[in-house]
């Protein structure tokens, strides 16, 4: 065993309820620097809700969330993104009527340097800045093998390409932690393997910490260094993939089907 990496994202004792429903119960979770952590659990376990809290959509009823030691729970979503957390959505939420290139460029907006007056007057400074952003966005698209679609509307992309574009868009905000909500859902095995390789490559190239939700245990086992299991809003297990696969509580949560792709949908 190597020494555990420095902690980047830390959730401590988080609770959230919707009316009477306790969606998240005292969950604690950490993600280390350049670590790839898997988050699994049956339908309705609270995985997406945990993401929503981390990214500022909901404020936890109890507990704190910290990024590199600074508390971020309670901040609005855009501020949390600025501090370094970017995400994708379970049901793809691209900006459909914008082009593929513009989806990435809009996400680059915080690196734009021109002020309103310079924009309105179309100043040199602004024009150069736009050129720089365009080139950068196109490089990103090339990395994700999307450059040939750059001028297509995002909503017209094939499904798999939409998933990749969502990751590209999230990365354009230059995060330290990337949170992926079921990035390979609805893909066939070949596509899944392909995207998982891309994610692995990203982690290495970009020095990212990644938290990834996935239903398909096989996929998670393949690439994650550590896996946490959520069931009915509680964290029931955490550890290296091999140990998780053998954990009786996890097997029970997945209806006694540990090796197969239980509870896919």
């Amino acid at each position, binding site marked *: 065993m190597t020494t555990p990496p420095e902690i980047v994202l830390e959730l401590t004792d988080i609770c959230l309820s919707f009316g009477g429903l306790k969606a998240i119960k005292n969950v604690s979770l950490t993600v280390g620097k350049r670590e790839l952590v898997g988050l699994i659990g049956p339908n309705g376990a609270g995985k997406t809700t945990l993401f929503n809290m981390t*990214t*500022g*959509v909901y404020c936890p009823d109890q507990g704190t969330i910290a990024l590199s030691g600074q508390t971020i729970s309670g901040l*609005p*979503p*855009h501020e949390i*993104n*600025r501090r370094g957390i*970017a*995400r994708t*959505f379970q049901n793809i*939420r*691209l*900006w*459909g*009527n*914008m082009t593929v290139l*513009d*989806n990435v*460029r*809009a*996400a*680059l*907006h*915080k690196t*734009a340097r*021109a002020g*309103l007056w310079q*924009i*309105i*007057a*179309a*100043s*040199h400074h*602004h*024009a*150069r*800045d*736009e*050129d720089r*952003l365009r*080139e950068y966005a196109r490089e990103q698209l090339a990395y994700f093998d999307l450059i040939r679609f750059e001028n297509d509307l995002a909503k017209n992309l094939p499904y798999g390409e939409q998933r990749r574009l969502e990751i590209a*868009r*999230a990365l*354009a*905000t230059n995060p330290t932690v990337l949170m992926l909500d079921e990035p390979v859902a609805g893909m066939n095995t070949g596509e899944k393997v392909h995207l998982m390789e891309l994610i692995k490559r990203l982690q290495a190239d970009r020095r990212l910490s990644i938290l990834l939700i996935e239903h398909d245990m096989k996929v998670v086992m393949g690439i994650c260094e550590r896996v946490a299991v959520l069931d009915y809003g509680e964290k029931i297990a955490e550890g290296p993939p091999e140990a998780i696969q053998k954990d009786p509580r996890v097997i029970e949560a997945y209806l006694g089907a540990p090796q197969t792709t239980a509870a896919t949908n």
Partner: protein
Amino acid sequence: MPNRLTVSASSTQRTFTWYALYALVIMLLSRTVVGWVGAYYEQILIFIGINITLAVSLNLVLGFAGQFSIGHAGFMALGGYSSAALSYFVLNPALMSLPLDGMLHAVLENVALAIVLFAGGIAAAIAGLLVGIPTLRLRGDYLAIATLGMGEIIRVVILNTNFVGGARGFTDIPRWTGFTWVYLIAGACVLVVRNLIASTSGRALTALREDEDAAAAMGINTTRHKVMAFVLGAFFAGMAGGLLAHYMQYLHTNSFTFLRSIEIVVFVVLGGGGSITGSIIAAAVLTVLPEALRVAQSWRMVSYSLLLVIMMLTRPQGLMGGREFHWSWILPRRKQA
């Protein structure tokens, strides 16, 4: 890519060159065509110009940022009344008291007009800021109804302000404007909106329209961007109000009810939200059409509203469907490299 860089390095000059060229054409037109079409057609042209300014500025809010505002007439009223008050009570008396010959007087009059138009725009923009910060938290139809309410409140407050005429209306505003100024402002409005939406900030604005939650998750400060669009839209609506005041020489709050706001919404929607050329075409056509239909006066408004409903049912994306007119549509296309 050296080629692209050289092009954009000169883009400021290009922007100003285009605008100067446009201004020249407008002044030439005002000396020639507008001179001999007669007062009636001149007035229609002026209304078209004012409506273009209103439509394009609302398009920024409604078509690009996706924020449904039905309060544009309120900002127009505020801009109109404040600029008129400034000229009527301050600048016009000052101008009259100076013993000036014709030429210098004309120059100063134009300077005074620029000042009051800008002041009207700023007054409307401040109101836009005050209205926008609390209401833009609301979404969709709630925002629509809140902006409608704010617009009506502005109107009723003006109606009860006696020194600007109150229920009698504001009369004897100096006639300082005509074709040239109206189209200079309309051109500036188009230019500003175009430059803004083609920028990274503008794309963030469009992202907001497409999916606000996703935009926030990508670090876009949704409130700030919405307010920015709203304030800029209000600024140009205020200028348009000022132009109307100094052309008609008369203002009454009845011209600024929410029906007027809805009319501007119709321009944007029929032209196609997110298309500047669409707004321009729709504003022009829908200003001329009622005049042309004057024979069938009573059917005019009926067909107008029927058109709106049919358009929504059959072509909800509007005339231009969010695209811009491009010369390549009519000119033979050059082969692409």
